[in-house]
């Protein structure tokens, strides 16, 4: 409890804990978006011809599309896509082999973020292991644990590196789950993506450690367009973590990422996210626009994809991690905690597309709204014709703290096969006065009681997170809701 108070105090003092700018020389692309910029990015990254073609095709398609503003329950000023720099790379490009060669400024940045690479390195050979692919402003700077992973045949590297070294894999899978025609932001990303992570787990390999990417938006006026591709071959298993923090910026920054997951026969991928980007100040000034397309496909039988997310940051969140259940007996899961405070807006949820026989999906979504925020769950469960004995269970609970916020539920349920069984439940409530009274009566003050109740409310989801993340997520929840109850 002492520790928590300290966190709260720090939070009040600093407003946004991760709001600092690290002084690293960056190389910018000029502002604006046109074919030249797309070519510039591709050229900078020394990409093969087919990838440039892909980018250009995506860009041309993007030009025919319109921003999806009419259906999400979000209100914001449109993004001026010509006022963004689409490429920012640290000048001292990381071609380092040991930590000593890494820019010391960069290391400091990580220390402030709370993930010290040294710490990670020291952990090699110990039980808890996380491999980190650190991404600062779109370029993967340093991939740790690469050698350890290479022994198992696991490829875990930056996307650009994968393009150079494993073009056949990238070519085969890129865009196979999220084609550039999918939506406005996916098209944009396909045209201008700068970097991201690539992960391939070969047949029958169980990845011995949790893989992790840390995204961070650093330079002002740059958008970040990473692209992540995870492939689990037959019988493989991987648990992947993604965490995000960003420094404080006044103008809104755009983040349009694409994550694709492919799970082959008997494979399992677990993807966990803790997202804590700058949400803007109390009056809704600044903050990140988070428009992300995340989708996995259970390509073959008995595969499983599980999404777990804890969303506490960003001014605007537009994000629907989805699973296409194509293989028979495949399983999709979605566990989410979304917290909005002050002027934040979130429209998030999932899509479970049942195509194969005996496919199952579970959706557990916990929304918490405080301040003047709006928090929406938007989810689709589709049982296609021929998806025999498909089964879905969804539960969407909303918790309201204060009378100025909103909690909304938009579940779309489309059933085209009579053998499908779908259940959906949703409740909306506030923290019960009797619950608080009960805590007070036992000597727990109201602020702590709320922390306790909220953590209990989210437990189903937090339990899904890997241990290292769960601790951070619990802290984040308390910090995000500080001061929201009078």
């Amino acid at each position, binding site marked *: 409890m002492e520790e928590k108070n300290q966190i709260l105090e720090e939070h009040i003092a600093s407003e946004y804990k991760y709001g600092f700018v690290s002084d690293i020389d960056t190389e910018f692309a000029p502002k604006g978006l046109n074919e030249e910029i797309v070519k510039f990015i591709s050229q900078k990254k020394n990409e093969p011809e087919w990838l440039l073609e892909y980018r250009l095709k995506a860009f041309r398609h993007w030009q025919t599309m319109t921003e999806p503003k009419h*259906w999400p329950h979000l209100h914001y000023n449109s993004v001026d896509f010509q006022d963004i720099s689409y490429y920012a790379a640290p000048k001292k490009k990381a071609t380092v082999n040991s930590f000593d060669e890494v820019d010391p400024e960069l290391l400091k940045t990580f220390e402030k973020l709370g993930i010290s690479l040294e710490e990670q390195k020291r952990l090699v050979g110990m039980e808890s292991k996380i491999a980190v692919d650190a991404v600062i402003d779109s370029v993967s700077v340093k991939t740790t644990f690469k050698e350890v992973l290479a022994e198992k045949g696991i490829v875990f590297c930056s996307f650009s590196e994968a393009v150079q070294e494993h073009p056949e894999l990238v070519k085969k899978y890129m865009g196979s789950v999220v084609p550039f025609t999918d939506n406005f932001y996916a098209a944009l990303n396909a045209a201008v993506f700068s970097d991201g992570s690539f992960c391939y787990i070969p047949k029958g390999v169980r990845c011995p450690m949790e893989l992790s990417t840390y995204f961070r938006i650093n330079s002002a006026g740059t958008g970040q367009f990473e692209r992540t591709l995870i492939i689990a071959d037959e019988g493989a298993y991987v648990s992947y973590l993604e965490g995000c923090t960003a420094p404080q910026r006044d103008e809104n920054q755009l983040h349009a990422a694409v994550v694709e997951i492919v799970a082959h026969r008997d494979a399992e991928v677990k993807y966990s996210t803790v997202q804590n980007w700058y949400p803007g100040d109390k009056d809704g000034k600044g903050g990140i626009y988070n428009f992300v397309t995340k989708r996995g496909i259970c390509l073959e039988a008995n595969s499983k994809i599980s999404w777990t997310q804890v969303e506490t940051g960003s001014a605007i969140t537009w994000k629907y991690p989805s699973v296409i259940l194509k293989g028979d007996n495949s399983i999709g899961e979605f566990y989410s905690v979304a917290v909005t405070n002050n002027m934040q807006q979130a429209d998030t949820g999932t899509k479970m597309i049942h195509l194969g026989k005996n496919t199952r999906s579970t959706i557990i979504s916990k929304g918490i709204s405080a301040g003047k925020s709006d928090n929406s769950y938007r989810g689709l469960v589709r049982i296609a014709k021929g998806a025999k004995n498909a089964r879905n269970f969804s539960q969407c609970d909303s918790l309201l703290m*204060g009378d100025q916020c*909103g909690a909304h539920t938009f579940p779309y349920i489309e059933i085209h096969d009579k053998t499908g069984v779908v259940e959906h*439940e949703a409740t909306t409530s506030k923290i019960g006065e009797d619950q608080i009274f009960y805590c007070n009566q036992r000597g727990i003050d109201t602020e702590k009681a709320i922390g306790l109740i909220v953590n209990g409310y989210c437990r189903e989801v937090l339990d899904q997170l890997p241990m290292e993340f769960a601790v951070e997520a619990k802290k984040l929840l308390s910090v995000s809701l500080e001061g929201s109850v009078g």
Partner: protein
Amino acid sequence: MSLVINQSPVERLTAHFEQELPSLYGDAALRREAMATLREKGIPDRKWEDYKYINPAALFKQPHVAQARVGLEIKPEAVTLMVLQPGSALAVVVNGELREDLSKLDRLPAGVRVKSIADAVVSDAVAREYYNAVNGTSADPFVLWNNALNKGGVFIHVDKNVQSEVGIHVLHISTNEVAAVSHPRNLFVIERDAQIEIVESFETLGPVKTFTNALTEVVVHQNAIVDHYRMQLEGQVGHQMNTVNAVTQKGSNYRTYTFTLDGAWVRNNLNIRFSESHAEAHLFGLTMLNGQRVADHHTIVDHAIPNCMSNELYKGVLDDKSLGVFNGKIFVRRDAQKTNAYQTNRNILLSDDAQINTKPQLEIYADDVKCSHGTSTGRMDEDALFYLRARGIGEAAARKLLVRAFAEEVVTNVPNDAIRAYVENRLDHFFN
């Protein structure tokens, strides 16, 4: 008149409107405004979130023919067959116009008035006050279309403190020699402490495709109790858009029962707004679909005020190649504290080709509320079926029994014995 081949649906609609306008009753300015807004908004298609699963664009492309010139003659015997409840007063509306010659309104007690809305907006202060008042600024294309082109319908007014023992049956008949659109327009105003039961039923006569764009406004004053039934019984040629916009005042109780038992294409927009506290609304719906029929229920319960209660139960049984849609929205506005809102939607698919799309939607801006919704869809419970068969009941009979039991949860809430018996009878014949 020259025929322009490439006229768009909107242009044709406009031309038809200009032609009809001089013969239409009431405020021409209101009609023009509605038409202008409709032109501006355009005709809804699948891209409209509210019309995502059914494509209503085709309905606007129907030939626009003046109704009066195409109606078939209706015999009183035909009307008798459509009476659901012999004891109640009967108002017959043919192609959107009240036909007093076919109606039986002399049974009504003092204080209950039923008349043509076209007359009422001229002669009756209450009708003038509330006409189009509940619609407000609705920009729904079907509301606008009705506003622009309706030729009448029924105005029902129940004086304060009148608790009518006699119900009112409003029988809507669509019948044409050529395919055409009608726009029945109703206004029900129930004054304080009054009570009434209103049964609307929708039927078609003849083999020609009809489209009925009905719009009903309901005003329930303080402490009034209203039971509002909609019996959708149009045959295989019947296409229906049915909008009900209701506003309820303090302590009132508005109960709606929607039975979609027949009709090729049915879309219901049921919108209830609480304008004062301590009011209740109950929404019950039962949809039985077979063949290639389509039924789409959109409901909105708008808790604009604290301390109100709403309860919604919609069930659907879908067979053959039918398509069902349910979109239930509960809207709890800022400061509408102590709201209790419950919603349940359950569906059974009996065939591999049937489809159901459901979206139970909550939009909540107040924290001291209890809101929940639940939906489930599945096939018939195989265990229950096995249980019945193990006890010597044949499969067909067992299925029938289970569907009946499934529907019963809605039917049992119907206070009117005649209606309940009628629905149960229809249920028994659903599989034949």
